[in-house]
C-alpha cells in the first residue's frame, strides 16, 4: 500500500499539516498547498449541501482518478484528514483511522500545541513516519 501524502485542514479550512511520503506527487509551493486546502474546504462544503444521498450529513469523501485516489475523513469537530494514495488501494480507512489516533494522541495531548494552528509536534511526525514508511 503506497501512501503519497497527507494533508490536515482545520475547522476553518486552513492547512495545518502537509507531508509527502513518496515522490509520486509533484512538489507544489507552500502557497499552492494553502490554495489547494482552501479550495477543497469549499468544495466539501458545497457537496455536503447538494448531496443526493439523503441524511448523509457529509460532503465529498473519495476522489479517484487514474493516477491517484484521495480520501477525506472529516471528524466530528470539523477537522479534515486528506490522504492521497495510489489508485486501487484497499483499506485506506484503516490508515486514516490510525492517523486520526496519532493526531488525537500526539497533537491534542501536547500542551505546547495551540488549537487550529499549524502542527509542529515532533512526536506526531516521528510516529507518523514510523507508521507509514514501512508500508511503502
Amino acid at each position: 500500500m503506497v501512501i503519497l501524502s497527507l494533508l490536515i485542514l482545520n475547522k476553518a479550512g486552513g492547512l495545518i499539516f502537509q507531508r509527502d511520503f513518496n515522490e509520486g506527487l509533484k512538489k507544489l509551493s507552500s502557497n499552492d498547498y494553502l490554495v489547494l486546502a482552501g479550495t477543497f474546504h469549499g468544495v466539501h462544503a458545497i457537496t455536503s449541501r447538494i448531496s443526493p444521498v439523503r441524511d448523509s450529513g457529509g460532503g465529498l469523501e473519495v476522489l479517484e482518478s487514474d493516477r491517484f485516489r484521495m480520501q477525506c475523513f472529516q471528524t466530528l469537530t470539523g477537522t479534515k484528514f486528506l490522504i492521497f494514495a495510489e489508485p486501487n488501494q484497499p483499506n485506506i480507512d484503516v490508515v486514516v483511522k490510525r492517523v486520526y489516533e496519532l493526531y488525537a494522541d500526539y497533537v491534542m495531548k501536547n500542551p505546547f500545541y495551540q488549537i487550529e494552528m499549524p502542527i509542529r509536534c515532533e512526536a506526531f511526525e516521528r510516529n507518523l513516519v514510523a507508521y507509514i514508511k514501512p508500508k511503502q
Partner: protein
Amino acid sequence: MQRGDSLSSPFVPFSPNPSIQQGTPTSTPPLKHTLSSSTSSNLRYSSSRKSIYDRHLNRSQRSELSKASFAFLFGEMVQYAQKRVNGIADLEKKLNLHGYSIGQRLLELLLWREGRSAKRETRILGILQFITTTVYRSIFNKPADGLEKSRDNEDEYMLIDNDPMVNSYISVPKEMSQLNCAAFVAGIIEAVLDGCLFPGRVTAHSVPTEQLPAKTVFLIKFDESVIERESVLG
C-alpha cells in the same frame, strides 16, 4: 449559617463527619427550594453519607487510571503554569512544586501500606532503592530503569527513566528545548526524600539516545548534612 435554614439557603453545610449532621436526614439539594425526598441525587454526597475520607486506604491500591485522562490533566497543568511564569527555570520550578505536594502524600500512604514490616531508611542507597522500586511501581507500575552514583561529585546520584510516562505525548518546541516536563516527577522524588530526612535538590534532564529518544536522568543532589551523616554511619 443556621442548620434550620438548610432548606432555604443555597449552601449545603459540609461536614466530613456524618454524626455532626443535624436537620433532615435526606440529601439536601443545593439549588432547589422544595421539601425534597431522597430521589433527587446530589453528586457530592453518597446516599450513605460517606465521604472519600471514610474509604479504606487500600481501596485504590490496585486501581488504574486511564493514561489519556492523566495526559489531558497534565497538559492543562503545564499550560496553567506556563501562563504564570516567565522563563523555563520558573516553569520547571512550578511543575516541581506540583509534584512536591503529591510526593508528600504518596510517601505517607506507601509507608502506611507497608505496615509492620516497614523499615525506616537511614542510608542513601536504601532510600534510593525505595524510590526506584516501591514509589515508581506505585505510580507507573514499573520500577525505574537505572540508578547510578556520580563519579565526579560525592553528593550526586542519578535515577534513570528510559521513557517517562508524563512525557509520552509531549513534544517540546525547539525554542524551549531545555524544558523537561518530568520536573513534575522530580518534584515527587524530592518530596519523598525530604520526608525521609534526606534534604536535597532533584532536577530532570533529557539525555536522548538513538534507541531511547525520551531518556531522562533525574539528578539528585543531596545536602551537606546528608553526606556527613552517611560518612559517620560508615
